[in-house]
Protein backbone atom coordinates (compact mmCIF):
# COMPACT_ATOMS: atom_id res chain seq x y z
CA UNK A 1 0.00 0.00 0.00
CA UNK A 2 2.91 2.31 0.68
CA UNK A 3 3.82 2.50 -3.00
CA UNK A 4 0.24 3.31 -3.96
CA UNK A 5 0.17 6.19 -1.55
CA UNK A 6 3.54 7.31 -2.88
CA UNK A 7 2.20 7.67 -6.43
CA UNK A 8 -0.96 9.47 -5.36
CA UNK A 9 1.08 11.89 -3.29
CA UNK A 10 3.25 13.02 -6.19
CA UNK A 11 2.90 16.66 -7.16
CA UNK A 12 1.91 17.55 -10.73
CA UNK A 13 5.56 18.34 -11.55
CA UNK A 14 6.71 15.00 -10.18
CA UNK A 15 4.01 13.21 -12.14
CA UNK A 16 5.17 14.96 -15.31
CA UNK A 17 8.75 13.93 -14.61
CA UNK A 18 7.64 10.32 -13.98
CA UNK A 19 5.55 10.43 -17.18
CA UNK A 20 8.50 11.61 -19.32
CA UNK A 21 10.74 8.96 -17.74
CA UNK A 22 8.23 6.26 -18.65
CA UNK A 23 8.02 7.52 -22.23
CA UNK A 24 11.79 7.69 -22.56
CA UNK A 25 12.10 4.13 -21.20
CA UNK A 26 9.74 2.98 -23.96
CA UNK A 27 6.82 2.23 -21.63
CA UNK A 28 3.30 2.60 -23.02
CA UNK A 29 0.84 5.13 -21.65
CA UNK A 30 -2.73 3.85 -21.16
CA UNK A 31 -6.04 5.74 -21.35
CA UNK A 32 -6.51 6.02 -17.57
CA UNK A 33 -2.88 6.89 -16.80
CA UNK A 34 -2.00 10.38 -15.70
CA UNK A 35 -0.85 12.44 -18.68
CA UNK A 36 -0.12 16.13 -19.23
CA UNK A 37 -2.97 18.04 -20.92
CA UNK A 38 -0.62 18.89 -23.74
CA UNK A 39 -0.07 15.18 -24.53
CA UNK A 40 -3.80 14.45 -24.32
CA UNK A 41 -4.67 17.35 -26.64
CA UNK A 42 -1.99 16.34 -29.17
CA UNK A 43 -3.30 12.77 -29.20
CA UNK A 44 -6.93 13.84 -29.57
CA UNK A 45 -6.02 16.13 -32.47
CA UNK A 46 -4.00 13.43 -34.25
CA UNK A 47 -6.23 10.41 -33.63
CA UNK A 48 -9.64 12.03 -34.19
CA UNK A 49 -8.32 13.42 -37.48
CA UNK A 50 -6.91 10.00 -38.40
CA UNK A 51 -10.15 8.21 -37.42
CA UNK A 52 -12.48 10.54 -39.27
CA UNK A 53 -10.17 10.41 -42.32
CA UNK A 54 -10.71 6.63 -42.44
CA UNK A 55 -14.47 7.21 -42.44
CA UNK A 56 -14.33 9.98 -45.06
CA UNK A 57 -11.72 7.97 -46.99
CA UNK A 58 -14.22 5.20 -47.58
CA UNK A 59 -16.43 7.60 -49.57
CA UNK A 60 -14.36 8.09 -52.77
CA UNK A 61 -13.83 4.32 -52.98
CA UNK A 62 -17.43 3.51 -52.14
CA UNK A 63 -18.40 5.43 -55.31
CA UNK A 64 -16.67 2.63 -57.22
CA UNK A 65 -18.45 -0.33 -55.64
CA UNK A 66 -21.41 -0.27 -58.07
CA UNK A 67 -19.15 0.57 -61.03
CA UNK A 68 -16.27 -1.87 -60.49
CA UNK A 69 -15.46 -3.69 -63.76
CA UNK A 70 -16.03 -7.29 -62.56
CA UNK A 71 -17.63 -9.22 -59.71
CA UNK A 72 -14.21 -10.03 -58.26
CA UNK A 73 -13.21 -6.35 -58.31
CA UNK A 74 -16.55 -5.42 -56.76
CA UNK A 75 -16.11 -7.86 -53.87
CA UNK A 76 -12.52 -6.74 -53.28
CA UNK A 77 -13.25 -3.01 -53.22
CA UNK A 78 -16.32 -3.62 -51.05
CA UNK A 79 -14.11 -5.48 -48.55
CA UNK A 80 -11.67 -2.56 -48.57
CA UNK A 81 -14.44 0.01 -47.97
CA UNK A 82 -15.63 -2.13 -45.07
CA UNK A 83 -12.07 -2.25 -43.67
CA UNK A 84 -11.75 1.54 -43.82
CA UNK A 85 -14.96 1.96 -41.81
CA UNK A 86 -13.67 -0.61 -39.33
CA UNK A 87 -10.40 1.33 -38.97
CA UNK A 88 -12.44 4.44 -38.32
CA UNK A 89 -14.35 2.63 -35.57
CA UNK A 90 -11.11 1.55 -33.88
CA UNK A 91 -9.51 4.97 -34.03
CA UNK A 92 -12.59 6.91 -32.94
CA UNK A 93 -12.78 4.60 -29.91
CA UNK A 94 -9.19 5.53 -29.01
CA UNK A 95 -9.99 9.23 -29.43
CA UNK A 96 -13.20 8.95 -27.37
CA UNK A 97 -11.41 7.48 -24.35
CA UNK A 98 -9.01 10.43 -24.46
CA UNK A 99 -11.88 12.92 -24.78
CA UNK A 100 -14.02 11.41 -22.02
CA UNK A 101 -12.40 13.43 -19.19
CA UNK A 102 -13.20 16.58 -21.19
CA UNK A 103 -16.89 15.55 -21.30
CA UNK A 104 -16.88 14.83 -25.04
CA UNK A 105 -18.00 11.76 -26.96
CA UNK A 106 -18.70 10.42 -30.46
CA UNK A 107 -21.60 12.78 -31.05
CA UNK A 108 -19.16 15.70 -30.54
CA UNK A 109 -16.73 14.17 -33.04
CA UNK A 110 -19.50 13.93 -35.65
CA UNK A 111 -20.71 17.47 -34.96
CA UNK A 112 -17.13 18.79 -35.16
CA UNK A 113 -16.79 17.08 -38.54
CA UNK A 114 -20.04 18.61 -39.82
CA UNK A 115 -19.12 22.09 -38.58
CA UNK A 116 -15.69 21.89 -40.23
CA UNK A 117 -13.82 22.08 -36.94
CA UNK A 118 -12.49 18.54 -37.33
CA UNK A 119 -10.43 18.18 -40.50
CA UNK A 120 -9.70 15.11 -42.59
CA UNK A 121 -6.84 14.19 -44.93
CA UNK A 122 -6.43 16.31 -48.07
CA UNK A 123 -6.62 13.26 -50.36
CA UNK A 124 -10.23 12.53 -49.40
CA UNK A 125 -11.37 15.95 -50.59
CA UNK A 126 -10.42 15.02 -54.16
CA UNK A 127 -12.55 13.43 -56.86
CA UNK A 128 -12.04 9.92 -58.21
CA UNK A 129 -13.62 10.06 -61.69
CA UNK A 130 -12.17 6.85 -63.24
CA UNK A 131 -11.37 3.26 -62.27
CA UNK A 132 -7.74 4.33 -62.58
CA UNK A 133 -8.34 6.56 -59.55
CA UNK A 134 -9.69 3.62 -57.56
CA UNK A 135 -6.44 1.80 -58.33
CA UNK A 136 -4.30 4.86 -57.61
CA UNK A 137 -6.00 5.41 -54.23
CA UNK A 138 -5.43 1.81 -53.12
CA UNK A 139 -1.86 1.67 -54.47
CA UNK A 140 -0.35 5.08 -53.70
CA UNK A 141 -2.69 6.80 -51.22
CA UNK A 142 -2.80 3.66 -49.09
CA UNK A 143 0.92 3.21 -49.75
CA UNK A 144 1.52 6.67 -48.30
CA UNK A 145 -0.80 5.92 -45.37
CA UNK A 146 1.06 2.68 -44.62
CA UNK A 147 4.34 4.60 -44.40
CA UNK A 148 2.95 7.14 -41.95
CA UNK A 149 1.02 4.56 -39.90
CA UNK A 150 3.80 2.02 -39.54
CA UNK A 151 6.14 4.70 -38.19
CA UNK A 152 3.72 5.03 -35.24
CA UNK A 153 3.43 1.30 -34.46
CA UNK A 154 5.74 1.91 -31.51
CA UNK A 155 3.87 5.05 -30.40
CA UNK A 156 4.13 5.94 -26.72
CA UNK A 157 0.32 5.81 -26.46
CA UNK A 158 -0.55 2.12 -26.04
CA UNK A 159 -4.15 2.10 -27.35
CA UNK A 160 -3.12 3.95 -30.54
CA UNK A 161 -0.22 1.56 -31.14
CA UNK A 162 -2.54 -1.44 -30.69
CA UNK A 163 -5.14 0.02 -33.07
CA UNK A 164 -2.43 0.68 -35.67
CA UNK A 165 -1.19 -2.88 -35.37
CA UNK A 166 -4.64 -4.18 -36.34
CA UNK A 167 -4.93 -1.58 -39.10
CA UNK A 168 -1.51 -2.24 -40.65
CA UNK A 169 -2.25 -5.97 -40.87
CA UNK A 170 -5.19 -5.16 -43.16
CA UNK A 171 -3.30 -2.53 -45.12
CA UNK A 172 -1.25 -5.32 -46.67
CA UNK A 173 -4.40 -6.54 -48.39
CA UNK A 174 -5.19 -2.97 -49.50
CA UNK A 175 -1.75 -2.50 -51.02
CA UNK A 176 -2.04 -5.74 -52.98
CA UNK A 177 -5.58 -4.92 -54.06
CA UNK A 178 -4.22 -1.62 -55.45
CA UNK A 179 -1.25 -3.27 -57.16
CA UNK A 180 -3.58 -5.78 -58.77
CA UNK A 181 -5.75 -3.01 -60.26
CA UNK A 182 -2.91 -0.83 -61.55
CA UNK A 183 -0.93 -3.76 -62.98
CA UNK A 184 -3.99 -4.98 -64.89
CA UNK A 185 -4.39 -1.48 -66.35
CA UNK A 186 -0.68 -1.04 -67.04
CA UNK A 187 -0.72 -4.30 -69.02
CA UNK A 188 -3.98 -3.42 -70.75
CA UNK A 189 -5.01 -1.47 -73.84
CA UNK A 190 -3.53 1.94 -74.74
CA UNK A 191 -6.76 3.50 -73.44
CA UNK A 192 -6.31 1.79 -70.09
CA UNK A 193 -2.67 2.91 -69.88
CA UNK A 194 -3.75 6.48 -70.67
CA UNK A 195 -6.40 6.27 -67.99
CA UNK A 196 -3.76 5.17 -65.48
CA UNK A 197 -1.40 7.99 -66.48
CA UNK A 198 -4.24 10.51 -66.14
CA UNK A 199 -4.95 9.24 -62.63
CA UNK A 200 -1.31 9.58 -61.64
CA UNK A 201 -1.30 13.15 -62.99
CA UNK A 202 -4.40 13.89 -60.96
CA UNK A 203 -3.10 12.41 -57.71
CA UNK A 204 0.57 13.40 -57.67
CA UNK A 205 0.18 16.80 -56.00
CA UNK A 206 -2.22 15.33 -53.43
CA UNK A 207 0.29 12.59 -52.62
CA UNK A 208 3.06 15.14 -51.96
CA UNK A 209 0.64 17.09 -49.77
CA UNK A 210 -0.46 13.97 -47.88
CA UNK A 211 2.64 13.98 -45.67
CA UNK A 212 2.16 17.61 -44.70
CA UNK A 213 4.52 20.56 -44.95
CA UNK A 214 8.26 20.29 -44.29
CA UNK A 215 8.07 22.66 -41.34
CA UNK A 216 5.83 25.16 -39.62
CA UNK A 217 6.83 27.93 -42.00
CA UNK A 218 4.82 26.51 -44.93
CA UNK A 219 1.42 26.59 -43.20
CA UNK A 220 2.17 28.48 -40.02
CA UNK A 221 1.58 25.46 -37.80
CA UNK A 222 3.08 22.03 -37.37
CA UNK A 223 2.50 19.65 -34.51
CA UNK A 224 5.02 17.13 -35.77
CA UNK A 225 7.88 18.31 -33.54
CA UNK A 226 5.81 18.03 -30.37
CA UNK A 227 4.58 14.58 -31.35
CA UNK A 228 8.17 13.44 -31.87
CA UNK A 229 9.14 14.81 -28.44
CA UNK A 230 6.36 12.74 -26.84
CA UNK A 231 7.34 9.72 -28.97
CA UNK A 232 3.84 9.62 -30.46
CA UNK A 233 5.54 9.55 -33.85
CA UNK A 234 9.12 8.79 -34.83
CA UNK A 235 9.79 10.69 -38.07
CA UNK A 236 9.26 14.12 -39.63
CA UNK A 237 6.88 14.79 -42.54
CA UNK A 238 9.80 15.18 -44.93
CA UNK A 239 11.46 11.94 -43.84
CA UNK A 240 8.21 10.10 -44.56
CA UNK A 241 7.81 11.80 -47.95
CA UNK A 242 11.37 10.83 -48.90
CA UNK A 243 10.65 7.22 -47.88
CA UNK A 244 7.56 7.26 -50.06
CA UNK A 245 9.61 8.50 -53.05
CA UNK A 246 12.27 5.85 -52.53
CA UNK A 247 9.70 3.10 -52.22
CA UNK A 248 7.38 4.04 -55.09
CA UNK A 249 9.15 6.17 -57.72
CA UNK A 250 11.19 3.23 -59.12
CA UNK A 251 7.97 1.18 -59.39
CA UNK A 252 6.07 4.00 -61.09
CA UNK A 253 8.91 4.34 -63.62
CA UNK A 254 9.17 0.58 -64.12
CA UNK A 255 5.60 0.57 -65.46
CA UNK A 256 6.52 3.23 -68.02
CA UNK A 257 4.43 5.88 -66.29
CA UNK A 258 5.57 9.51 -66.16
CA UNK A 259 5.63 11.47 -62.93
CA UNK A 260 4.11 14.91 -63.59
CA UNK A 261 7.20 16.72 -62.24
CA UNK A 262 10.04 17.01 -64.75
CA UNK A 263 12.44 18.16 -62.02
CA UNK A 264 12.18 15.06 -59.84
CA UNK A 265 15.46 13.16 -59.37
CA UNK A 266 17.49 11.44 -56.70
CA UNK A 267 20.46 13.50 -55.59
CA UNK A 268 23.36 11.14 -54.86
CA UNK A 269 25.24 13.73 -52.86
CA UNK A 270 22.51 14.50 -50.31
CA UNK A 271 20.85 11.07 -50.74
CA UNK A 272 17.55 12.93 -51.06
CA UNK A 273 14.90 13.23 -53.73
CA UNK A 274 14.71 16.69 -55.28
CA UNK A 275 11.17 17.57 -56.30
CA UNK A 276 8.91 20.47 -57.10
CA UNK A 277 7.25 21.61 -53.90
CA UNK A 278 3.51 22.14 -53.86
CA UNK A 279 1.46 25.23 -53.07
CA UNK A 280 0.85 24.87 -49.33
CA UNK A 281 -1.74 27.59 -49.48
CA UNK A 282 -3.77 25.35 -51.77
CA UNK A 283 -3.33 22.52 -49.25
CA UNK A 284 -4.71 24.78 -46.54
CA UNK A 285 -7.69 25.62 -48.75
CA UNK A 286 -8.41 21.92 -49.39
CA UNK A 287 -8.24 20.73 -45.78
CA UNK A 288 -10.37 23.61 -44.55
CA UNK A 289 -13.23 22.28 -46.66
CA UNK A 290 -12.69 24.00 -50.00
CA UNK A 291 -11.47 21.02 -52.03
CA UNK A 292 -13.32 19.83 -55.15
CA UNK A 293 -15.38 17.20 -53.29
CA UNK A 294 -15.27 18.55 -49.69
CA UNK A 295 -18.81 19.82 -49.77
CA UNK A 296 -20.39 16.77 -51.46
CA UNK A 297 -18.71 14.22 -49.21
CA UNK A 298 -19.51 16.08 -46.02
CA UNK A 299 -23.06 16.48 -47.22
CA UNK A 300 -23.31 12.74 -47.92
CA UNK A 301 -21.89 11.96 -44.48
CA UNK A 302 -24.34 14.37 -42.83
CA UNK A 303 -27.35 13.02 -44.74
CA UNK A 304 -26.43 9.44 -43.92
CA UNK A 305 -26.11 10.38 -40.24
CA UNK A 306 -29.50 12.10 -40.29
CA UNK A 307 -31.21 9.39 -42.34
CA UNK A 308 -30.06 6.73 -39.90
CA UNK A 309 -31.09 8.68 -36.80
CA UNK A 310 -34.29 6.61 -36.58
CA UNK A 311 -32.21 3.44 -36.09
CA UNK A 312 -30.41 4.99 -33.14
CA UNK A 313 -33.71 6.33 -31.79
CA UNK A 314 -35.35 2.90 -32.09
CA UNK A 315 -32.43 1.22 -30.28
CA UNK A 316 -32.43 3.89 -27.59
CA UNK A 317 -36.18 3.44 -27.05
CA UNK A 318 -35.81 -0.32 -26.63
CA UNK A 319 -33.20 0.26 -23.99
CA UNK A 320 -35.43 2.62 -22.04
CA UNK A 321 -38.21 0.02 -21.60
Amino acid sequence: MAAMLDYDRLTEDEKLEHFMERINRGEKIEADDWMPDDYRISLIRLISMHGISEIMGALPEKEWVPKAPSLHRKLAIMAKVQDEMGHGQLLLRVAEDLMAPLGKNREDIMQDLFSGKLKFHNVFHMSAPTWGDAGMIAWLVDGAAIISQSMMLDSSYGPYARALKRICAEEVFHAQHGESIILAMAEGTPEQRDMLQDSLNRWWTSLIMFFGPKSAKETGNSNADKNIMYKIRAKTNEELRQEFFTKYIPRIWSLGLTIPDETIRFDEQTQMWIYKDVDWNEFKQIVTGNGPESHNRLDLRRRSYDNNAWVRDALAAKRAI
Partner: protein
Amino acid sequence: MSEAKNEFYNVYEVFSKKTDKSPFQHQFSLLAPNADMALIMAKENFFRREQVADIWVVKRENIRGLSQSEREMLKRLDKDYRETKGYGYLKKKWREYNQEQFTEQHILGGKGDAQ
Protein backbone atom coordinates in the same frame (compact mmCIF):
# COMPACT_ATOMS: atom_id res chain seq x y z
CA MET B 1 -31.31 12.76 -30.14
CA SER B 2 -29.16 15.41 -28.52
CA GLU B 3 -30.56 14.82 -25.04
CA ALA B 4 -30.01 11.08 -25.33
CA LYS B 5 -26.49 11.50 -26.68
CA ASN B 6 -24.78 10.80 -23.42
CA GLU B 7 -26.83 7.73 -22.55
CA PHE B 8 -27.16 6.06 -25.92
CA TYR B 9 -23.79 4.34 -26.28
CA ASN B 10 -22.00 2.12 -23.80
CA VAL B 11 -18.39 1.10 -24.04
CA TYR B 12 -18.00 -2.67 -24.41
CA GLU B 13 -14.71 -4.52 -24.13
CA VAL B 14 -14.39 -7.37 -26.63
CA PHE B 15 -12.72 -10.70 -25.82
CA SER B 16 -12.40 -13.68 -28.11
CA LYS B 17 -10.79 -17.06 -28.53
CA LYS B 18 -9.31 -18.13 -31.80
CA THR B 19 -9.84 -21.87 -31.46
CA ASP B 20 -11.62 -24.16 -28.99
CA LYS B 21 -8.32 -24.77 -27.23
CA SER B 22 -7.11 -21.18 -26.90
CA PRO B 23 -7.79 -18.88 -23.94
CA PHE B 24 -9.90 -15.73 -24.24
CA GLN B 25 -7.93 -12.67 -25.20
CA HIS B 26 -8.80 -9.02 -25.05
CA GLN B 27 -9.22 -7.57 -28.56
CA PHE B 28 -10.36 -3.96 -28.33
CA SER B 29 -13.35 -1.89 -27.26
CA LEU B 30 -16.36 -0.60 -29.16
CA LEU B 31 -19.47 1.54 -28.67
CA ALA B 32 -22.90 -0.05 -28.79
CA PRO B 33 -26.35 0.67 -27.35
CA ASN B 34 -26.76 -2.89 -25.98
CA ALA B 35 -25.00 -6.25 -25.73
CA ASP B 36 -26.62 -7.74 -28.85
CA MET B 37 -25.51 -4.81 -30.99
CA ALA B 38 -22.10 -5.03 -29.33
CA LEU B 39 -21.75 -8.63 -30.52
CA ILE B 40 -22.74 -7.69 -34.06
CA MET B 41 -20.27 -4.79 -34.04
CA ALA B 42 -17.56 -7.04 -32.60
CA LYS B 43 -17.96 -9.46 -35.51
CA GLU B 44 -17.96 -6.59 -38.00
CA ASN B 45 -15.02 -4.76 -36.47
CA PHE B 46 -12.64 -7.51 -35.47
CA PHE B 47 -13.46 -10.76 -37.22
CA ARG B 48 -13.93 -9.92 -40.87
CA ARG B 49 -10.90 -12.09 -41.62
CA GLU B 50 -9.62 -13.55 -38.37
CA GLN B 51 -10.60 -17.02 -37.29
CA VAL B 52 -12.77 -16.99 -34.15
CA ALA B 53 -14.32 -19.74 -32.01
CA ASP B 54 -16.14 -17.62 -29.42
CA ILE B 55 -16.71 -13.96 -28.51
CA TRP B 56 -17.50 -12.19 -25.24
CA VAL B 57 -18.62 -8.57 -24.92
CA VAL B 58 -18.43 -7.02 -21.46
CA LYS B 59 -19.68 -3.62 -20.45
CA ARG B 60 -16.60 -1.68 -19.40
CA GLU B 61 -18.30 -0.27 -16.31
CA ASN B 62 -18.60 -3.83 -15.00
CA ILE B 63 -14.85 -4.37 -15.10
CA ARG B 64 -12.84 -3.49 -11.99
CA GLY B 65 -9.34 -2.88 -13.30
CA LEU B 66 -6.25 -1.54 -11.56
CA SER B 67 -5.73 2.17 -11.10
CA GLN B 68 -2.43 3.69 -12.13
CA SER B 69 -1.15 3.71 -8.56
CA GLU B 70 -2.01 0.02 -8.21
CA ARG B 71 -0.19 -0.72 -11.45
CA GLU B 72 2.82 1.28 -10.30
CA MET B 73 2.91 -0.86 -7.18
CA LEU B 74 3.07 -4.06 -9.23
CA LYS B 75 6.33 -2.91 -10.78
CA ARG B 76 7.89 -2.74 -7.33
CA LEU B 77 7.07 -6.27 -6.24
CA ASP B 78 9.99 -8.65 -5.91
CA LYS B 79 8.73 -12.18 -6.50
CA ASP B 80 12.00 -14.04 -7.01
CA TYR B 81 11.27 -16.31 -4.05
CA ARG B 82 8.19 -17.58 -5.94
CA GLU B 83 10.13 -18.48 -9.08
CA THR B 84 12.91 -20.85 -10.05
CA LYS B 85 15.22 -17.93 -10.88
CA GLY B 86 15.29 -17.12 -7.16
CA TYR B 87 16.91 -20.53 -6.59
CA GLY B 88 19.60 -20.43 -9.27
CA TYR B 89 22.39 -20.76 -6.71
CA LEU B 90 21.27 -24.33 -5.89
CA LYS B 91 22.95 -25.73 -8.98
CA LYS B 92 26.38 -24.71 -7.72
CA LYS B 93 25.59 -25.97 -4.23
CA TRP B 94 24.64 -29.45 -5.43
CA ARG B 95 27.83 -29.60 -7.48
CA GLU B 96 29.75 -29.28 -4.22
CA TYR B 97 28.08 -32.57 -3.22
CA ASN B 98 28.80 -34.12 -6.65
CA GLN B 99 25.10 -34.04 -7.48
CA GLU B 100 23.23 -32.55 -10.45
CA GLN B 101 20.35 -30.25 -9.65
CA PHE B 102 16.93 -31.73 -10.52
CA THR B 103 15.36 -30.01 -13.50
CA GLU B 104 11.68 -29.16 -13.55
CA GLN B 105 11.11 -32.35 -15.52
CA HIS B 106 12.86 -34.45 -12.87
CA ILE B 107 10.86 -32.89 -10.07
CA LEU B 108 7.52 -33.31 -11.84
CA GLY B 109 8.28 -36.26 -14.07
CA GLY B 110 8.69 -39.25 -11.79
CA LYS B 111 10.08 -41.15 -14.77
CA GLY B 112 12.70 -42.63 -12.49
CA ASP B 113 15.51 -41.26 -14.62
CA ALA B 114 16.65 -38.86 -11.89
CA GLN B 115 19.35 -40.82 -10.14
